[in-house]
């Protein structure tokens, strides 16, 4: 069993020796799968630019080109971007040069943390007040519609905290309304009061609020993932952290400004009818009618009065592209999902011939925080276009009247990448340049080597023969740590992680020191060598276990509450404890039995 574990450990540690090749990872736009024709096209382009490459192949529906040096990698990225930038997403990458027989076994090298390979780490916080507010607004207009349909008269519907309230003229209306609304809105709790007028208040339940937040976070994650893919990064990480935060890791990205602007932009469209019944000028002077809102044109600054009711929101948009209309002016073509299509089709049915405003809504972080510590965003709404609804609009339509082709392109990109459901703010950023990453690897390796050699030396002098056995166990321990780290998918090696390995090297011999000191004691007490070995291992065991379990507890706690790089330290420490117990107890025992077992021994080399 010992041999098997060591064998597996070696096997999985092996890929780490092969290093990495500079590579390009080329994928299709919007996750399109690349085919042999694409591969040939790319190969052809590389050949015409006479760039030497190691190999080019299709891996996981993407084309991967390996180079001999980073120079070739960079020049070819430029060349390919120039020729195919419109068709493909091209990302720089370092591909592990693991031989195929090893990667077939799923043996891959350790993942390196951003502090070792360079890149950007963002922690983004989602502003949850926006989706809640949106839901409340929808509820308000929903109440209005349902009451109108049921022909129940009400004085007014207004927003309250996490809900809506309706005022009625009579108790009878209140009761009727309560009955109808309760039936329809199961996740809203209703409370009526007749103290001051007849008021029905509906508030969202905790569960519903949680669900809204959860949805918003999930959607934002999907959207950010799309945007990250659009930037062109190999092996990006986008994952949630807690209830309101998203971690984004972009290895190898240096232009953080670009990454930030793409990731952080929050834009959405809303389509609403223009209010023609009321006068725009009097509204601009401050008398905005109840069912309408006043906004200004993005281009000319002219006021536009639009209805409050939203016909369609941007989250139903599944694709958007820019092109030119028949008069040569820029336009954006928009495709909706099926739900959006039917909503829009219903909403435009009765509005043919009426003008519709396209509102561009942007959330810009102000950098300020409210008293609860939540980031404050400024909601900026502008009218980008007013167009007459020519026909009943379905799943596919276009909007015109944009200022420039560039503007159309930007808008299309933002819409395509998806509108963030809730505005987002970067609350933490860590960027590590590639030079520092490599330096960190070198420093970490040096520290491990020096620590390792010093301990080897010390143990060999102090315990002689047994010391050599302990050294063997220590070397094995290193191999096992690397092997286990490579095996666990979620484990990444960071600089503190390397420090953890160094520390483990120093502490791993402790188990052997305990055992060997025991053996010496037993020998001093006059026991025979075989018995001393036996007793030494046995009586040291519970001490070793106790001591290691407590350190393990510390490592687990560190992992549970630590952030990023600290987790790396906790992981190597925990793995190191487990492997060192194995090698120091089982490993050395096996070797010592092999050397001294089954024969009469007079002296132990200890």
């Amino acid at each position, binding site marked *: 069993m010992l041999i098997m574990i060591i064998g597996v450990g070696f096997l999985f540690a092996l890929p780490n020796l092969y290093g990495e090749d500079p590579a390009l990872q080329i994928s299709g736009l919007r996750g399109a799968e690349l085919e042999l024709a694409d591969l040939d096209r790319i190969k052809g382009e590389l050949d015409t630019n006479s760039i030497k490459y190691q190999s080019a192949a299709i891996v996981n529906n993407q084309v991967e080109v390996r180079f001999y040096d980073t120079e070739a990698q960079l020049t070819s990225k430029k060349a390919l971007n120039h020729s195919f930038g419109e068709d493909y997403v091209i990302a720089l990458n370092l591909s592990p040069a693991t031989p195929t027989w090893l990667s077939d076994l799923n043996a891959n090298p350790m993942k390196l943390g951003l502090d070792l390979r360079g890149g950007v780490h963002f922690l983004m916080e989602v502003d949850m007040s926006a989706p809640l507010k949106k839901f409340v607004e929808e509820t308000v207009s929903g109440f209005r519609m349902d009451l109108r349909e049921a022909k129940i008269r009400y004085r007014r519907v207004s927003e309250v905290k996490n809900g809506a309230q309706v005022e009625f003229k009579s108790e009878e209306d209140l009761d009727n309304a309560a009955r109808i609304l309760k039936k329809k809105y199961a996740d809203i709790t209703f409370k009526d009061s007749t103290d001051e007028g007849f008021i029905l208040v509906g508030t969202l339940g905790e569960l519903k609020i949680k669900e809204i937040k959860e949805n918003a976070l999930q959607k934002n994650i999907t959207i950010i993932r799309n945007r990250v893919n659009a930037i062109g990064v190999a092996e990006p990480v986008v994952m949630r952290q807690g209830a309101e935060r998203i971690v984004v890791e972009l290895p190898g990205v240096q232009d*953080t400004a670009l990454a930030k602007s793409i990731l952080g932009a929050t834009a959405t469209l809303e389509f609403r009818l223009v209010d023609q019944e009321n006068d725009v000028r009097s509204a601009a002077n401050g008398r905005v009618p109840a069912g309408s809102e006043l906004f200004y044109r993005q281009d000319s600054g002219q006021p536009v009065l639009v209805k409050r009711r939203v016909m369609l929101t941007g989250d139903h948009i599944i694709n958007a592209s820019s092109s030119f209309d028949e008069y040569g002016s820029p336009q954006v073509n928009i495709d909706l999902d099926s739900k959006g299509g039917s909503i829009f089709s219903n909403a435009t049915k009765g509005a043919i011939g009426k003008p519709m405003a396209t509102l561009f809504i942007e959330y810009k972080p102000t950098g300020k925080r409210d008293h609860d*510590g939540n980031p404050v965003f400024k909601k900026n709404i502008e009218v980008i276009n007013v167009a007459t609804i020519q026909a009943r609009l379905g799943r596919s339509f276009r909007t015109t009247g944009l200022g420039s082709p560039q503007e159309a392109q930007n808008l299309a990109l933002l819409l395509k990448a998806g509108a963030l459901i809730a505005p987002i703010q970067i609350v933490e*950023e860590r960027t590590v340049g590639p*030079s520092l990453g490599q330096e960190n690897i070198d420093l970490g390796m040096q520290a491990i080597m020096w620590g390792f050699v010093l301990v080897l030396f010390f143990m060999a002098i102090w315990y002689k023969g047994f010391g050599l056995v302990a050294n063997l166990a220590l070397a094995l321990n290193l191999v096992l740590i690397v092997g286990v780290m490579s095996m666990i998918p979620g484990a990444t090696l960071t600089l503190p992680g390397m420090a953890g390995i*160094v520390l483990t090297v120093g*502490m791993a011999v402790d188990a052997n020191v305990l055992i060997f000191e025991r053996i010496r004691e037993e020998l001093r007490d006059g026991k025979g060598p075989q018995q001393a070995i036996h007793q030494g291992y046995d009586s040291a065991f519970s001490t070793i276990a106790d001591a*290691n379990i407590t350190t393990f507890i510390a490592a687990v706690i560190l992992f*549970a509450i630590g*952030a990023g790089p600290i987790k790396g330290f906790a992981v190597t420490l925990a793995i190191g404890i487990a492997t060192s117990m194995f090698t120091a107890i089982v490993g050395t025992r096996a070797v010592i039995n092999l050397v001294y077992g089954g024969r009469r021994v007079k002296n132990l080399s200890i």
Partner: protein
Amino acid sequence: MFAIRFKETIEFMSYRKIAMIFSGLLIITSLVSLGVNKLNFGLDFTGGTLIEVGFEQSADLKAIRTVLDSNNYSDAVVQHFGSSSEVLIRLAPRDGVKAVDISNDVLNVLDSAGQGKADIRRVEFVGPSVGEELTEQGGLAMLTALICILIYVAFRFEWRFALGSVSALAHDVILTLGLFSVLNIEFDLTVLAAILAVIGYSLNDTIVVSDRIRENFRRLRKGGPEEIINISLTQTLSRTMITSVTTILVLLALFFKGGALIHGFATALLFGVFVGTYSSVYVASTIALTLGVSKDDLIPTVIEKEGADQDAIV
């Protein structure tokens, strides 16, 4: 031949009053310094922006400061980091400015400092709320670790030992924090990790000693608690020393070879291992002894426990 042999039992416990006074003084110094100097919390906890840039030749800090000054970054702390061509710039969190843009802006400003092109080595931005949370979490981590360990040790040993070993841990943590406060070394996340590792290490030591004390209480028929503790400490002394030596060896390697980024980490651990070794001899045992640990506390429960232990070993 190199083994440390102690024929005589060393009378550790007869020095315990001196040790207690010594520890007490150190703790008071640490607490006073923590109260007055406070900890020099790093970016991870305070929030703010940190930018490390590399220049091709050694950088003139004065020129950089002047340029930053004239661009509204008069609060910037500029210093060399690691070598003279690398520069570290720290900025406190600011209100009203889109914090994320600061790093880009500063890099543009640096390019105009006449020092050649600045190569980004590292940018860290931590929002103030994230920093606050980390401080809370960090403190919580430390407390949770101490409590979990207290429970484990109380379960495995006896409450007096548990209290002794946790006091030893608290002693080590306070002294290490004190060192960072007195020397005004930056306290960042890696240092927090190091302190938790110190807890693990120090405990390791304490447990080995306590294990031996328990064993000797059961095995040796004669001798008072003080004598038995002395015997146990003497018996484990060589192990304590050797493990400390190997750990200190690797930490020295880390300190000198690991680079500037983990200096704080290595410093905390080096000091912690030192103090941890001392505290497992003096603080843990002394407290167990002062609390009146005696044979009677261990022996009655031993009879069942012995069996359980044997099972575990085999």
